[in-house]
């Protein structure tokens, strides 16, 4: 289409790690129906490391591609290291996004942060 980079289209066509994790250690949800993007990020944590990450996304090409990309970026990373991943870094890993998408659809890192927060809350309770 030319609007998105090849990398974005690759992730859009064949998104990685789609799905839910039934016994997830943390779940993060971002976005809202008004702007039309809702992402749910699931993580599984072991010994302070993210061993699995999956997503479900309602949204445009950029929303799907960034979700797919972040699940790849975080696997095997320690949770503190994973928290450092920014939305901008996800966009860069995808070879950039159209300017209008940088704000509305580039939320995957926020979704991951929420999942990690959720994990931290849950582990406190234990």
């Amino acid at each position: 289409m030319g609007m998105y980079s090849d990398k974005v289209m690759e992730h859009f066509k064949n998104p990685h790690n789609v799905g839910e994790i039934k016994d997830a250690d943390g779940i993060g949800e971002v976005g809202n129906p008004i702007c039309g993007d809702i992402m749910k990020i699931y993580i599984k944590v072991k010994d302070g490391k993210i061993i699995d990450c999956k997503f479900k996304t309602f949204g445009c090409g950029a929303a799907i591609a960034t979700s797919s990309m972040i699940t790849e970026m975080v696997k095997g990373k320690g949770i503190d290291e994973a928290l450092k991943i920014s939305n901008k870094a996800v966009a860069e890993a995808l070879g950039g996004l159209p300017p209008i998408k940088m704000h509305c659809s580039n939320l995957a890192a926020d979704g991951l942060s929420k999942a990690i927060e959720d994990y931290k809350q849950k582990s406190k309770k234990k």
Partner: protein
Amino acid sequence: MKRIYMDHAATTSTDVEVVKAMEPYFSLKYGNPNSIHSFGQEAREAVEEAREKIAHLIGANPSEIVFTAGGTEADNYAIKGIAWANQKKGNHIITSKIEHHAVLHSCQFLEKQGFRVTYLPVDKYGLIDPEDVKKAITDKTILVTIMHANNEIGTIEPIKEISKVVKKAGVYFHIDSVQTVGHIPIDVNDLGVDMLSMSGHKFYGPNGVGALYLRKGTRIVNLIDGGAQEKNRRAGTENVAGIVGLGKAAELAEERLTQGKEKKIVRLRDKLIKGIIDKIENVRLNGHPTKRLPGNANFCFEFIEGESMLLSLDMEGVAASSGSACTSGSLTASHILLAIGLPPEIAHGSLRLTLGKDNTEEEIDYVIDILPGIIEKLRALSPFKGNWEGLN
């Protein structure tokens, strides 16, 4: 890969016959129609011939056709021109919530200048109630501007019925006919309108040219000032080739309408609608089931978003459109889909397929064949399954 074009409401191809008619007016018959010499006069003749064809298509007098640079300019001219020329009579304009931005933004501009604008609601099909128009008219109302048919959901408005109440009140009536001219029969006297906007590239004419039908005696001021072209109504040297193309497009459209060719498009549209509704769950048709443009099919597929549908269809060679935020060029879903009462999450899942004269039965079958798979694949990515549970 074979490509299938189903975005005719955005633009149509320029008919090869139109291009052929335009061709001499670039490098051979390039005179300025305002010049006295033979070069000028052959261009003048071509412009006037085009004016006749356009007038004939909509049942107008040729002197009532003013050429513009497109539908947007025609809308701006009608709305601002009437407002500025009739300020002494009043400052109130009536329009609807589902107009094209060319109309909505012109009205908003006038609001900043002190005019008052009423934006009428529509029902779930996108229909305006003539009774609402009647109720909105005050002694300060100078203009009612309503679209003939909606560009997104295809609903055709009850213009004749609206005209009755507008005319009774002695108010000017403009219709934006960009989506209807050349596609359904139009007679300005039968409809009872004072102004009508049209655009060449929406009915197989060239881009960058349109016209405003301006009923004789209408009190209006100019939008574009300069030379005396178009009988002092629209300055600027005429776009001769474009105007010739618009004229040819009008002639060809009239031929098609006389032969009832739009019936084929209606049949394909209904087949497409039925095929999609029958094969896919959680889908709704937007717009009126029968009072709709021959080529327009517009759906909302729940739990998925429009742009991702467009990307997926494009990968299969099908060109379509959507009213999602991403594709409406703003941060919210289409104002039209919201105005017919759809919640934002559903409005984001809209898909518009608009057929043209050259679409074939095979193309319809192809789309009906591939769309269920696309929807299914995208729904597998969605956090919503069969309901909107969990939506904040």
